[in-house]
């Protein structure tokens, strides 16, 4: 037992050494090794697949090259827990020797594998989870966040409710840490009266009791945090109770998007959604992206695809500015920070904590040409920053 454990220890150290002492090649490398970690099965695999569609589209458009250098892609199944994520990340580091990691789905997984990836000198991007722990005092030059700091979405929804003149709002959410944080985050920017609250078990899909209570409370608007199957059921039952036309719903774009439009039908129409990107945004990069996505996959993209697509386009510019040589990782990080890339979401810059400074938009679900789609109605916040960056003192 002792012997095998010692052997295992040596093996691990040896692997780490080998990774750290790989010769830094001068000049353009033969290829850039990109790693992707995702849950290949289970409920969040839909999100992972959407990210891969964005990645695939970007690489097709870039001729499978970043800054002129051929790309090699390595995928590992991170499943859904921090330990399985860490195992998958270790495989990418030790067996695949990746240069850059993109994608990710869960904050707790990212927190588990960011340190070993950074130690192996991998430049880490995240296209979805943006844990606040990495935005403030815990910020690190090893991580670039393409998506958002987790609390900015709820803050933007609160802003949208205030902007819409909501005076009495009802809050309905799943009863766990993230759900309660989402409600608290929105309430920082929504200053009206609270008509009532409901916190429900994650697995609940029948909301008859809550909808009756909402009807009785007569609010101006309802804030909804019910991702996944719960949100679909809620929207259908809310519409079925005849409330859809009377009480507007506010949520993030996940409440009703191209993944759920078919399951929602007319129940989705009129929902007020807030996000940092919508397919409807009118800028040249986005029009091009959405048209190419529709041509390739037969439907409009969801935000997860847009974030990963942006990620690859940003990398392409950064690698090109270095003439394809990414062996100096500090130079690569500088090039990423200073990149002139044009995001599909419009204005975009990295803050000091390497989280985005970006706009938030409000959209409404409408039916046009017989199809449900997001119609952008307003810009809710311009150059919006997360609430943690001033605690970040980036080691340079």
């Amino acid at each position, binding site marked *: 037992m002792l012997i095998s454990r010692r052997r295992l220890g040596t093996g691990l150290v040896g692997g780490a050494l080998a990774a750290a002492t790989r010769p830094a090649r001068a000049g353009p490398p033969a290829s850039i090794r990109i790693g992707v970690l995702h849950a290949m099965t289970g*409920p969040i*695999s*839909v999100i992972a697949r959407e990210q891969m569609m964005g990645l695939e589209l970007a690489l097709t458009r870039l001729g499978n090259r970043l800054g002129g250098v051929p790309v090699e892609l390595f995928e590992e199944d991170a499943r859904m827990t921090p330990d399985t994520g860490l195992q998958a990340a270790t495989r990418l580091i030790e067996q695949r020797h990746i240069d850059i990691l993109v994608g990710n789905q869960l904050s707790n997984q990212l927190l588990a594998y960011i340190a070993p990836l950074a130690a192996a000198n991998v430049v880490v991007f995240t296209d979805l989870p943006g844990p606040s722990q990495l935005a403030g005092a815990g910020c690190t030059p090893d991580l670039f966040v393409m998506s958002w700091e987790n609390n900015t979405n709820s803050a933007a929804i609160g802003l949208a409710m205030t902007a819409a003149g909501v005076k009495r709002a009802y809050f309905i959410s799943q*009863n766990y840490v993230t759900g309660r944080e989402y409600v608290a985050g929105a309430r920082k920017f929504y200053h009206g009266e609270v008509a009532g*609250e*409901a*916190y*429900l*078990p994650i*697995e*609940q*899909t*029948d909301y*008859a*009791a*809550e909808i*009756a*209570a909402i*009807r*009785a409370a007569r609010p101006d608007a309802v804030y909804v945090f019910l991702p*996944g*199957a*719960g949100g*679909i*059921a809620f929207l*259908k*039952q809310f519409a*079925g*109770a*005849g409330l859809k036309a009377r009480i507007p719903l506010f949520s993030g774009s996940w409440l009703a998007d191209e*993944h*759920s439009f*078919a*399951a*929602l*039908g007319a129940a989705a129409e009129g929902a007020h959604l807030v996000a940092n990107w919508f397919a409807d945004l009118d800028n040249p990069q986005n029009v091009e992206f959405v048209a190419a996505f529709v041509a390739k996959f037969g439907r409009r993209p969801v935000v997860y695809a847009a974030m990963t697509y942006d990620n690859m386009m940003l990398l392409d510019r950064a690698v090109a500015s270095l003439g394809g040589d990414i062996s100096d990782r500090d130079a690569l990080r500088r090039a990423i920070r200073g990149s002139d890339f044009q995001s599909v979401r419009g204005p975009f810059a990295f803050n000091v904590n390497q989280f985005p400074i970006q706009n938030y938009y409000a959209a409404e679900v409408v039916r046009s040409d017989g199809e449900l789609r997001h119609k952008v109605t307003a810009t809710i916040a311009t150059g919006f920053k997360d609430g943690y960056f001033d605690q970040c003192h980036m080691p340079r």
Partner: protein
Amino acid sequence: MDFGLFAEQTLNGVQYGIMLFLMAAGLSVIFGIMNFINLAHGTLYMIGAFFFATFDAWLGNFAVALLLAILASLLLGLVLDRGVMQRLYDRTHLDQVLATFGLLMFFNELAAVLWGTEPYFIPVPALLDGTIALPGDIDYPVYRLAITAVGLLVALGLYLMVEHTRFGMLIRAGATDRETLSGMGVDVRWLYSGVFAIGVMMAALAGMVTGPLVAVQVGMGETMLIVAFVVVVIGGIGSITGALVSSLLVGVVDTLGRALLPVWLGYTAGPALASMSIYVLMAAVLLLRPQGLSGARRA
């Protein structure tokens, strides 16, 4: 809370209870008569919803699709029983739990392969769409009233079948003493197949009629299964009357708990207690009547 809202919430509780009854009746009778624990019962709720969604998308006719889905689930019940379950009836409960848990995973994966992981849509038929004004200033969704009525009709039909038909008499006889029944020349295996298929059909029916209210997708049956087991324990194993009383009780307690406890106890303790109310009810029933509300006292 005024009377109108209280009445509406009670109605919501009854509607939820009726759906639970459709799930729990089959579970209870199969457990009571065949002494068989079927963890895959919740999966059949999901399969029912998928059958219905598929037929409805093909035919565009709610009633015909419902009828076809009912027939398909009866057939599936028969095939499952003859093909798999019959081999498990004489095994220990541990074997049954392991095997049916395996089936549960198999069906979930199969559904993911056949129907994909994105949710399906079943529209509410135009006739049942919208709300109806009830006394006490209540606007109640017509569809929820309709499925409550369907559930009550099925309960009545089940009662008539068990109490007033030869098939029902055989079921009751089988529950009391299956060896004597078998000795009198009744093919107990086919009797079991019939009971199993009807149980499957009822679970699938619950999934079908709930389909237009929720997201039809893989894994939708598992939470219903857990609550259905609570119903079976409270009602008493093997008793259809017990299952009906207990379903309505669990439905109303759960719904009123969700509606009232957060108002009384605040938004921290309220939701936490509301989500455990039915388990507290189950513990209380087990303490006072371990055999369940109308279960036979066991030696």
